[in-house]
């Protein structure tokens, strides 16, 4: 994979310095960055730093870290999307575009897919990868913050956010923004790390993610800190029931979740009616 030389000035502080309160922190100006408490205004640029740093090696690391299983999680997400020819799909925090690539084929030439990500470096890697695969035509790339989506109301039939929500500073605001741009009858799918449902699995998983994962990050991407952050951010992410509740608060109906790989990952689904 070619090295990425993109200068990354994607985080506009006026976009990220919101003042709404977060359920994650007692101090409304603070939020978590992995296990650390940081200023809310800072989190987005710190997250950007992480993904800028891992962008070029992101796909390889994804396969390594999940032992290829992330492909199956993503397939399941697409199977649950109900996507059809002609649909408009938003792949939010889409990164290097695994889901967007598939959606582009499924919606066909009369459909439209938007790959949106806050991080320019990730988008660039995604764009290069999908172009090389010959995926052009119905796919657009948009640099955007999930908390304030630059799309009209009632616009998309399907929105997916895969392994993205946990990085977002104000998740409630992001969910509300997704609700706004979703068409009535449309659905949101959130694929995200969650809470393993079994104690043994939790222990093995902790061992793996706090010890092995940063080492793998060091070896392959020469960046153990970013992978330490990933492991920590996974633990700080709301569990299955909490996220379901947050989706309901944002207005989603018929919400449900499906545990995958013992709850290491969960797919949440909600509709707008």
């Amino acid at each position, binding site marked *: 994979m070619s090295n990425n030389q993109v200068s990354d000035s994607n985080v506009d502080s006026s976009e990220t310095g919101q003042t709404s309160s977060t359920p994650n922190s007692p101090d409304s100006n603070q939020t978590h960055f992995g296990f650390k408490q940081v200023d809310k205004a800072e989190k987005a640029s710190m997250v950007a730093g992480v993904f800028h740093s891992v962008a070029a090696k992101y796909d390889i690391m994804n396969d390594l870290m999940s032992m290829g299983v992330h492909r199956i999680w993503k397939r399941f997400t697409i*199977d649950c999307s109900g996507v059809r020819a002609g649909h408009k799909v938003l792949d939010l925090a889409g990164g290097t575009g695994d889901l967007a690539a598939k959606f582009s084929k499924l919606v066909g030439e009369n459909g439209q897919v938007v790959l949106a990500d806050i991080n320019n470096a990730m988008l660039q890697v995604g764009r290069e990868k999908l172009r090389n695969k010959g995926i052009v035509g119905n796919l657009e790339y948009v640099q955007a913050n999930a908390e304030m989506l630059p799309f009209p109301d009632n616009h998309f039939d399907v929105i997916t956010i895969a392994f993205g929500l946990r990085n977002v500073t104000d998740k409630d605001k992001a969910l509300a923004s997704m609700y706004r741009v979703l068409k009535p009858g449309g659905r949101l799918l959130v694929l995200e790390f969650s809470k393993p449902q079994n104690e043994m699995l939790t222990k093995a998983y902790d061992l793996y993610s706090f010890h092995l994962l940063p080492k793998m990050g060091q070896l392959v991407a020469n960046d153990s800190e970013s992978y330490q952050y990933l492991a920590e951010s996974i633990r700080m992410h709301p569990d299955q029931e909490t996220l379901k509740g947050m989706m309901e608060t944002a207005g989603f109906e018929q919400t449900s979740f499906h545990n995958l790989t013992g709850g290491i990952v969960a797919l949440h689904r909600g509709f707008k009616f």
Partner: protein
Amino acid sequence: MPAAQLVSSAIERVLNHLLKLDSDSASGLKKLAGKQLSVAVHELPWPLIFNFSDRVDVLVGMPDEEVKGDCHLALSIATLQKLKDTSQITRLIQNNDLVLEGDLKVAQQFSQLISELEIDWEEQLSQYTGDLVAHKAFAFGKKLVQNTQAQANRLVATLADAAIEEKRIAAPPILVVDFCDQVNELRSATDRLEAKLNRLERQSTTKPNKQSS
């Protein structure tokens, strides 16, 4: 649930790989672009949905959401076996053993596309054995694949004939046939093994003295 996605992913890979190898397949695929074919085999817990573009994407149908696409086929494994005999097809439909809904051309074009590909399953699958996904899905073993290859070839020929002879009737995708055959084969292989084990067990308990060699 991931078992379903392992299977759909393996089918998709093999299918697209073959389509890429066969330069003639592009025009067949073009006719199908934008169409969707769903296939429900009663014994499989989930229907498979074939989406056509410049490639084929294979999705798994979800239980809470019925997707019929442009064309829908529903049948049992037993019916799949009977399809080998083309003369029975009309009767199968009359008996409700075979359900065909929607645009039959889609199913016919797909079966034609598949039948024109000369599928050497053994060779194809051996290329993927290093791959986690395909490896798991096809861990049925090499011997099974060889057996299935012969059966699949026979079926492809029969179904292609059927599509031509029976105007209103299209053949189901051969890949589902293939998968079901593998499952059936595996089932009878395990049955045989079980019978053998039972026999050995009986021998060792009823004739303890004669088992010394």
